[in-house]
């Protein structure tokens, strides 16, 4: 072998050492699994043995007769209109709040337009930090801080959407064609003009597409926000579950499911047209 090829090839391990390495890795993985199974008290046998309890729950949820179905659809379903509208409203406001707040963050957190490299690093770190905490945890925190209700949901989604949108949009801004930007600068344009006429037109369609994506995510989140007390249809679901009104809960889950599927479908179509 020539020195060049040994330098570029990965360090070779002898077959015996490789075997040993695999053995150690295998033992480590087995150990992690044993510890995890003990920590969660997860036992496949018990899960299967008690599976009938789960099936029993499902049986109690699904209305058994045609009359029950009819009754639920004519009497209970109309009462769900308001909570479902609230769910959509929470998702809408959370997305809108995130879209507005993300714009300044994007400008700070994009390498090619940031006012200073240190600002860039701080803004990017802040963005990543916010995203490590799930939206529902923010919701639980806001419920404790400002009280039960849709406002907590909106605040939680706003915080989380801001970080997600800022991340997606800053990647789009960093990928813009630098030509127009340089042209505007060369013609004596201010940095505001560079943003307005160089960056914005290139990024806008992508930004709207990201907003739609975040809206989809927020709709999904807002259907369950109520389970932690942050308003919307989830709050109704939790109420019905705690009252053991399983048939009503089933109607809620069914409608939620259809709604999520429908919105995914429509938003997917719009995004296809945008980009």
């Amino acid at each position, binding site marked *: 072998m020539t020195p060049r090829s040994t330098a570029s090839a990965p360090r070779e391990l002898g077959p015996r050492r490789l075997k040993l390495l695999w053995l150690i890795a295998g033992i480590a993985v087995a150990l992690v699994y044993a510890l995890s199974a003990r920590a969660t008290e997860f036992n496949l046998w018990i899960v299967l043995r008690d599976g009938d309890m*789960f099936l029993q729950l499902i049986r109690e949820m699904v209305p058994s007769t045609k009359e029950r179905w009819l009754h639920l659809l004519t009497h209970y379903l109309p009462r769900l209109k308001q909570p479902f509208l609230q769910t959509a409203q929470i998702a809408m406001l959370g997305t809108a709040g995130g879209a507005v707040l993300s714009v300044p963050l994007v400008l700070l957190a994009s390498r090619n337009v940031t006012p200073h490299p240190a600002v860039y690093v701080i803004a990017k770190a802040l963005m990543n930090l916010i995203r490590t*905490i*799930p939206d529902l*945890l923010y919701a639980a925190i806001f419920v*404790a801080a*400002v009280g039960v209700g849709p406002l907590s949901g909106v605040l939680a989604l706003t915080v989380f959407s801001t970080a997600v949108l800022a991340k997606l949009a800053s990647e789009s801004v960093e990928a813009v064609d630098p030509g127009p930007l340089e042209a505007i600068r060369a013609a004596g344009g201010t940095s505001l003009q560079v943003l307005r006429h160089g960056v914005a037109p290139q990024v806008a369609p992508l930004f709207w597409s990201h907003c739609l994506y975040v809206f989809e995510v927020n709709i999904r989140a807002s259907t369950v926000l109520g*389970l932690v007390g942050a308003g919307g249809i989830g709050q109704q679901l939790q109420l019905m579950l705690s009252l053991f009104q399983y048939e009503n809960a089933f109607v809620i889950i069914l409608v939620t499911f259809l709604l999520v*599927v429908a919105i995914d479908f429509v938003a997917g179509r719009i995004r296809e047209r945008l980009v």
Partner: protein
Amino acid sequence: MSGLARSAARRAAVAAVIIVLCVWAAQGIRLDIQRIGRGLPAIVNIFALMVPDRQWLWPAIEAMGETLAIALIGTTIGALAAVPVAFLAARNVVVYRAAAAVGRQVSNAIRAFPELVLGVFFVASYGPGAAAGALAIGVHSIGMLARLYADIIENVDPGPAEALLAAGATRLQVFRFAILPQVLPEFIATALYRFEINLRSANVLGLVGAGGIGVVLLQALTLRRWGVVGACLLVIIAAVSAVDYGSAWLRRRLV
């Protein structure tokens, strides 16, 4: 020019619709800007109170161990159960032509079902605890993993399989020596990515009683022990960041 004017008019119309919708939504939930303005200092104040309580750091880390275990067991359940669904759903395997369509629809349906609701179900039927959380994560993961696995299977290079078939190998041998070596690293990389998502979900599942650090956090929130909340958040941020980083590193080496 008329084209430009038309697109400007369309943009204005879309903006108007969005603004009207937002105003409608704000009225719907009785959003009061003044109230938010007054409440903002209080919120900032609470976040300032979340200085991690040192005494609670170790209990939080222990609870995070349970959360990690929930995510691991859940991801493993999902990753194993997704394999048969994926082979059914892959269009180039085709056991029965209808199976591919059914497999895709099943994985889509599971995906649309929020894991928090699954968590509530499993807590209701198996009792509160980490096992219910692991099950919820496992079942929910099947949907996305099966879809991604099916895509991986559809991108398999058919060359080796054809060569083995021509040499008279059995179907099982073709699977073992031509298909599996191609798909396995990507399967594992995809499962690792799902593990990152599932760790976030496992943090949340505690809020409905499904074990892990979420349980500690919920108690701290209901008792307004902001120092404990801070300790939990610190541990969550550290664990999620570490797992994201480690998993990204592993995935880069795998694929």
